[in-house]
């Protein structure tokens, strides 16, 4: 099964979860998502998702100068972002439980 299709629906949740653990800049978020096993996540999709969450008021950003190369723009989850993450987590768990039950019955 192509996980990239599944990812589309939960990328918001994944990005919020990664950023709650620790603030990060774009490539950093991407790398951490891949490290957790989401190999199919697209580079541009992550950046697009960051911009959408930011524009929705769920993230704040700040710039950290870098000694080598260009400065980096870090994102962090704010209060509305945390609330959103909480809510989305519940929906996800309920959804995953439903799917798990369904698949167990079918097995």
């Amino acid at each position, binding site marked *: 099964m192509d996980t990239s299709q599944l990812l589309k629906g939960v*990328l918001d949740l994944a990005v919020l979860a990664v950023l709650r653990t620790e603030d990060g*800049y*774009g*490539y950093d978020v*991407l790398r951490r998502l891949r490290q957790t096993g989401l190999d199919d996540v*697209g*580079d*541009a*999709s*992550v*950046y*697009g*998702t*960051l*911009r*959408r969450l*930011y*524009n929705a008021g769920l993230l704040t950003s700040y*710039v950290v100068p870098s000694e080598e*190369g*260009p400065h*980096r*723009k870090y994102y962090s989850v704010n209060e509305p972002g945390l609330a959103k993450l909480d809510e989305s987590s519940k929906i996800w768990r309920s959804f995953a439980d439903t799917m798990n039950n369904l698949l167990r019955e079918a097995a």
Partner: protein
Amino acid sequence: MADIGTDTAVASYLASVRTALTDLPATEVGEILDDIGPHVAEVAAELGPDDQPGRLHERLGTPEQYAAELRAAAGYPPRVDAPPAAAATRQHTQLRLALWLLAAATVPMPLFAMLAGGEEFVLWGVLATLTAGLSLYLAVRAPGGIAAMAELSEIRWLRDRNPGGVVAEYGRLFQPGWWLVRAGVAATVIVLLVDGRSVLAILLLMVPLALGSAWVGRRSQADRRLLWVVLPLNAFAFAFGLYILSQGAIGTIGYAGYNGPSSGPPTPQFGNVYPYDSNGKPLTGVYLYDENGRPITSEYSLSYCTPPGRVLVPANQYPQPEYEHDYGTGECVVRSVVPVPPTLPSAQSATSVPSGPSATSVPTSPDASTTALPGAPPAAPTTTK
């Protein structure tokens, strides 16, 4: 680490992404590039210096694909393609110009022609023909052609004000009648141009013209290009119809241009002159002069109608013979004149109630009795020339 080749490849890649996002607000594009700039640079550094552009594309996709994926994930509106939009603007400008040129040939030009009349009518007609021709050329050459004209805001505005095609319905109702009127005007124009004034000829000409008019009317509903001919022509036909009506009788139209003040002796605004002597006896062969000795001529000297064997009389000899156009035969005949019976100045004892020249025919020969010349003429009139 980052050598010149890497920087160039990264800059080029980012520039292409930026181009693909130009429809977004500039600040948003700036934020996006702040995010992806370091990312693309790091990816490029990881890939190593060999064949940077090719490997970047392999790893990240083309800049356009990258931008599209980012756009989808960020929930931006789909791209409004800038280059086609520019082409559409040019197309609209061209079609709009064509539309207004056609409108100019259809509304103000016939109006000006009608107001000016005479020879200027023809000039406005020529100008309108050129204008409509240019308009048709622009409309046909525009991308999308005439059909794309329906998308102009002006046309849509008109359509919005015509719900359910009410105007079109009424148009259909009056169309056959208009086709007939238009044929009548065309027949009149043709008959006037060949210098005839026969109503019979006009009626005969109307038959084929009405058929042709109806055919063009039907065709123009199928082939919209004919609109460029039909609309201005209709307007000019309408204007000419009104012009003819405003000129009164058909017969006078040919000389409409000469009615204005002309050089030479002043032409008084009266028709014929019927002199009487103190006894109320009608006089003939009277010559009129003004205080400067110039002959006083009337409009009858400009009579258009020349009967066979017409004898020319001096333009200031009164009463002038009157001719008229017999619409039955198409010939010129001497007109029967019954002028208003004069009421002579009251100092006159009522010797006899003057009966005006209730003549059924007025003498046409110049050598008619020159009984009374009231006062000496300033110069001896030369009679027949």
